[in-house]
């Protein structure tokens, strides 16, 4: 009975909207070709891919490539680098936008507020290549402004980018510089939706500004905070490697080589397709597990999650 009515619904919808169904063919093809085919293409991680036999024809290799990867001591360095970099990034770039939004929310609308928003938001529009060049120029040991300042105060100049232990800080703090204003927008919107009556009530009860932030603002934007946190943790292993790759140099590789830059070098540059797909697949699966896990925890703890 149910099946029949579903079928009727579909038929009626198709008769009514057949032109829309036709229109949707190109976008659907797009998703199949550029998103789903690569997902199935990832089977070459379990094969010995060669160009002649193609994805389907190449012989199976089992878990050989995974074993190769994990038996190599480099693997653990890569996993460690990837995790450390993203945890560091999360620890910095997750709270900062919340703090900025809470601060902006404290002051009245006016030119000052609008200019802070406009200027902090601007770096978002600068390309990765330009950001990295700016970092290189500003930190240059010969003529970079940071080193000029250091020398002014009697310190030796430092080759920041040539030091492996500085790489993570450079990456994370430049990211904070670029993204904080942009990421604050979502919290500002959430703050605008906080019930005004609660403020009034808190004021009448004699709550200070700090108490109002702690007891009204933060609980009010909690759902937004949780969702952003889930999304960030879900992307823990997928840090923007476009920027990491550009910041790399032979001197900082010991901390700047992450899984994704390794996949790029092994796959595209060395044409080691099956092996690098295996490494990439490992990365994607960890990500998926993290996302599902964090979502489950968030739902249990705070009652809201992505799904």
């Amino acid at each position: 009975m149910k099946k029949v009515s579903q079928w009727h619904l579909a038929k009626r919808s198709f008769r009514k909207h057949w032109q829309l169904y036709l229109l949707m063919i190109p976008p659907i093809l797009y998703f199949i070709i550029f998103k789903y085919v690569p997902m199935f293409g990832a089977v070459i991680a379990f094969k010995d891919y060669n160009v002649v036999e193609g994805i389907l024809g190449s012989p199976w290799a089992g878990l050989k490539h995974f074993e190769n990867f994990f038996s190599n001591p480099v693997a653990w360095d890569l996993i460690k680098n990837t995790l450390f970099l993203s945890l560091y990034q999360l620890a910095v770039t997750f709270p900062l936008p919340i703090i900025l939004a809470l601060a902006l929310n404290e002051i009245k609308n006016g030119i000052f507020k609008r200019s802070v928003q406009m200027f902090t938001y601007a770096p978002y529009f600068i390309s990765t290549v330009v950001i990295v060049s700016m970092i290189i120029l500003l930190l240059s040991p010969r003529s970079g402004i940071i080193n000029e300042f250091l020398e002014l105060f009697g310190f030796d100049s430092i080759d920041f980018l040539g030091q492996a232990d500085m790489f993570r800080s450079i990456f994370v703090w430049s990211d904070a510089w670029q993204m904080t204003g942009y990421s604050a927008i979502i919290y500002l919107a959430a703050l605008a939706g906080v019930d005004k009556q609660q403020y009034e009530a808190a004021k009448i009860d004699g709550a200070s500004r700090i108490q109002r932030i702690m007891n009204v603002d933060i609980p009010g934007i909690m759902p937004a905070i949780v969702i952003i946190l889930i999304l960030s943790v879900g992307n823990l292993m997928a840090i923007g490697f476009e920027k990491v790759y550009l910041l790399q140099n032979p001197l900082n590789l010991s901390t700047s080589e992450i899984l994704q830059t390794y996949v790029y070098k092994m796959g595209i540059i060395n044409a080691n397709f099956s092996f690098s797909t295996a490494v990439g697949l490992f990365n994607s699966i960890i990500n998926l597990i993290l996302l599902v896990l964090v979502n489950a925890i968030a739902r249990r703890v705070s009652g809201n999650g992505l799904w």
Partner: protein
Amino acid sequence: MKKNTTSIRESFTDRIFLWAVYAFLCIVMLIVLYPLIYIVSSSLSSPEAVTSGQVWLWPVDFSLEGYIEVLQNSDVLRGFRNSILYTIGYTVIAVVLTVIFAYPLSRESFYGRTILMFFILFTMLFYGGLIPEYLVVQKLGMLDTPWAILIPKAMAVWQIIIARTFFQSSVPEELVEASEMDGCSSLKFLWYIVLPLSKPIIAVLALMYAVYQWNSYFDAMIFLKSEELFPLQLELRELLIVQSDSGANMDVAEQQRRTQLANLMRYSLIVISSLPVLVIYPFAQKYFVKGMLIGSVKG
């Protein structure tokens, strides 16, 4: 609004706190602005002043040499032209695909919208990987053609969600039903009613896609081999990041001048390449914020 009725005087600590907030925001603004001012000032200074580190806030020995050098560089000009073409082409393709996909998904009477939503959301959860993606582009014969820039990233799930949410809230279902009774086909309705109503969302989508394309380098780096096809960002990477100071077999004075000019040119390049985005920025800011807010309602 109701200042008079609820004006309980601010306590001392509250006033201190408010001053701290202002101070904090001023510091944040300075931290964000300083590098930008420094780059622009350097780009307008003389090569000697830049290399010897005299610039720290305003231009020293005002000169446009860096810009002249950039505009005489044929690689940069070609990259600029390519990037403009890629950005226009890509934006048109991406906006059209996004609209024709998002609009049906917004209609309640459209059968299959739930499964199609899942179909696209799933691609956010699981990523096939760089190499399989590369193999698809290779198989399609797109390697080293402009198509490799225009097509593989032509749609973004986030943008589809934004567009769908917009259509849902601003094209009421009653309007659709009324038009159906008048015998208006879905296609006509989309073209004559929905699109004119959707100018703001089309602006949002176009800006988001255009800025993405203008700023991206990675696809070009893996998919393109011929320099004639390189977009600006790839030329920039070449000039700003990869290239070390060269010129080994020149006399010392000439070599020094070269090095200084190359150094200055980097600043000018940064400014010139960011100019198109900065020009639309005040206009774009409003739309970007709007887009993010529409998306986060249902995101």
